[in-house]
């Protein structure tokens, strides 16, 4: 749920990066953090285990600029991917305005992608959201690796809706901003609809 503050002339939106463990969600945020001007970003917080696996969430606040005199802020969150952290994932989805599903293009993660997407749908439904109705984009990450699934096959299974989708390599940053920009745009368009614009 976005927060429109007429008093401070700010608008805040929440974007959640979802996907199977080790697909590159945290790496996406790290790249965005590195490439964003200091004045446009806050501290990146990672609640992680000693082995750098996300324990609860990563958080990155971005203040991108103004729209119609309103400071526009996006709060980026990642969820922990491992199956057993489901309770935490549900908490992080609360109040979400837009979702990025990061798929791991590697062949051996094919089933993990499907399972995670299914889990996303279930967890959203529990809170009264429908994935199809949310601003939602898909990123096929790790496309630099040799052992990747056939993109067509991935698309068929993960993106039957035909939502915006991007090939990416989060470690080099390829596709990272394209993905973020796309979901941000969908969120703002959604706000526009809610505001009676067309």
């Amino acid at each position: 749920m976005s927060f429109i503050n007429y008093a401070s002339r700010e608008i805040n939106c929440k974007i959640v990066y979802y996907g199977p463990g080790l697909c590159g969600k945290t790496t996406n945020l790290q790249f965005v953090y590195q490439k964003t001007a200091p004045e446009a970003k806050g501290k990146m917080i990672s609640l992680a285990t000693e082995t750098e696996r996300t324990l609860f969430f990563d958080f990155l606040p971005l203040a991108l600029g103004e729209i119609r005199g309103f400071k526009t802020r996006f709060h980026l969150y990642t969820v922990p991917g491992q199956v057993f952290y489901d309770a935490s994932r549900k908490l992080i989805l609360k109040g979400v305005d837009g979702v990025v599903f990061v798929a791991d293009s590697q062949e051996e993660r094919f089933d993990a992608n499907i399972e995670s997407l299914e889990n996303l749908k279930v967890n959203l439904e529990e809170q009264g959201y429908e994935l199809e109705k949310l601003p939602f984009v898909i990123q096929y990450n790790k496309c630099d690796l040799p052992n990747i699934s056939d993109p067509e096959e991935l698309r068929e299974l993960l993106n039957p809706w035909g939502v915006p989708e991007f090939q990416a390599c989060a470690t080099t940053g390829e596709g990272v901003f394209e993905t973020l920009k796309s979901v941000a745009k969908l969120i703002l368009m959604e706000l526009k609809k809610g505001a009676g614009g067309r």
Partner: protein
Amino acid sequence: MLGSHQSSFVMYDEEFKRISVVIEKLLRESNSKVIFLVDKNGQLIAGCGETEHLDTTSLASLTAGNIAATGGLAKLIGEKEFSILFHEGEKDNIHISIIGQRVILVVIFDQRSSLGLVRLRVKKASEELGVIFDDLSKKAEEIEQSGNAESPFAEITDDDIDNLFS
């Protein structure tokens, strides 16, 4: 509090001022250092006191995460939620409470105050804040239903959005 059908949580000038008055009074009367209000999704609503050296955005997000996690714990043991959390540090302490199920009130204080005093003052302030947030949600609903919300987003263009990322 705020109807779940609403897509946005909206804050208006008038209520923002009323909220500021209440938390500034709370700051004085409880002898605390910092006070802020966070929405349960982690967005900072208002704050006062010695906030200059604080990363309030991070604080807001972690507070909401904290409340969400303890709320999850509560459910597991059959409680609705833990409406008050208290963290004691060497110098500074944090008192966290939930107002009307939706907003989180955070009070940071040191030895110039005490848990008892903070509790007492928070209780009174919570009631006042609860009324304001009720008013706010009524107002937001009315404006939404009347269909003339002067939202800044009604006229937004593709160029506006592209410019954000340039």
